[in-house]
């Protein structure tokens, strides 16, 4: 079984060369020297409308096409709406849904099942949530996970300690299961840091920063890999286009800065 083989490779990595999780977005994989190191928890962060959800969905669709089980945990948007966004993609194949390769779960349903209804979770409840997410990933054999957005989950954690606790434990659990995860983080364009609470970015294995860049009246969407543990990578800024064949990236021209 290919899945077992993959586990073996994961537990016996070659020196200096960790097994990669190809995003399927060619230029991003090139930027990352082959893809995201497997098991990494990566923050995909940016202000509204920069393409975080679209890029994360594409990461999952490619994973599903490669035969991996993929899960989208949606906190704020209904799954039906997200699905509707996938249909225009030329590489999308709805048998991925029927075969259970690509799955959507609404986070509020998980809260409800766990009886988490308070506006602020306790440390015990955080453990409960992390365990529940771990169980889902394990049972469904999920290799790629997206949480959109982790910022909304953090709203219910309130304090830095709790956020740190949640992300550390979740990251550890997912990594042990060999699951590569994208945590969507929403920031304001004016934010000097990469996450709302500042803690998420320090704990995450990687940060992919998405932004809007204004140049002489033109607005460009940009993407930049700020950090990625387990690989060398370009830190240059790229310009991004969301198209029916997926995310396309080209280097931002330096002469064009400012």
């Amino acid at each position: 079984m290919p899945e077992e083989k993959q586990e073996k490779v994961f537990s016996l990595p070659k020196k200096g060369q960790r097994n990669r999780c190809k995003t399927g977005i060619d230029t991003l994989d090139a930027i990352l020297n082959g893809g995201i190191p497997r098991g990494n928890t990566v923050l995909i962060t940016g202000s509204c409308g920069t393409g975080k959800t679209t890029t994360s969905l594409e990461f999952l669709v490619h994973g599903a096409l490669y035969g991996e089980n993929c899960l989208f945990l949606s906190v704020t948007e209904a799954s039906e709406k997200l699905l509707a966004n996938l249909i225009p993609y030329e590489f999308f194949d709805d048998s991925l849904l029927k075969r259970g390769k690509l799955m959507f779960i609404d986070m509020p349903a998980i809260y409800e099942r766990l009886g988490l209804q308070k506006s602020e979770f306790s440390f015990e409840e955080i453990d409960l949530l992390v365990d529940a997410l771990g169980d889902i990933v394990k049972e469904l054999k999920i290799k790629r996970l997206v949480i959109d957005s982790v910022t909304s989950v953090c709203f219910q954690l309130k304090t830095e300690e709790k956020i740190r606790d949640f992300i550390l434990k979740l990251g550890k659990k997912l990594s042990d299961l060999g699951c590569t995860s994208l945590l969507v983080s929403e920031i304001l364009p004016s934010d000097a840091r990469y996450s709302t609470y500042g803690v998420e970015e320090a704990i995450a294995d990687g940060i992919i920063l998405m932004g809007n860049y204004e140049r002489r009246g033109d607005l460009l969407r940009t993407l930049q890999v700020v950090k990625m543990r387990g690989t060398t990578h370009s830190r240059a800024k790229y310009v991004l286009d969301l198209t029916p064949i997926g995310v396309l990236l080209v280097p931002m021209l330096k002469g064009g800065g400012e």
Partner: protein
Amino acid sequence: MGATEQIFESLKELPEGSVIALEANSEAYFDVIRVITEKIPKHKNLDVIYINSTLPANSIINVMELLDIKRDNIYFVDCGSSVLLTQQASNGHIIFVESATMLENIMLKVEYLMRKMDKKKGKLIFIDSINSLAIHNSLSILSEFMHILFNNMRSKGAYTVVLSIKEQSSDEMSKALTMVCDEKIDVKEEW
């Protein structure tokens, strides 16, 4: 020999991945269009990505109709139309770039077309013209743009032809083209 023959003769034997600057007077413009959109694609069985910034794509299409040139294999990346003024929608054969200052967007649209078009057929990328792009962009950013785009096309085995109109060019532009192109072709008025 007329300009059409001269341009055709100098391009027809080039190997895949060649990057060529065509330096021509504006009188030779129709000859250039004839060769780039008809004679070379026919000779080498190519699809053409036509990056236009001098004229709107529809005007070039009118010229082609006048010259009786078929255009099923021509795809435009149109930086020469004011999209907002004309309210045109992109279609399979014309993709609009809002402003010629968005050089990255030109690269993105070329990339998009390269992936969408018939993989089995060769590609020719034509820039008409580098001088009109220079109206909106500094030479340093244009050079960077050409360097990245041309290397990308070279790696994909596509042919790249960039038109420079002599009356609108400068020594600096000519030097910049020497840097990024494999060869320069000086289109003579009378051959």
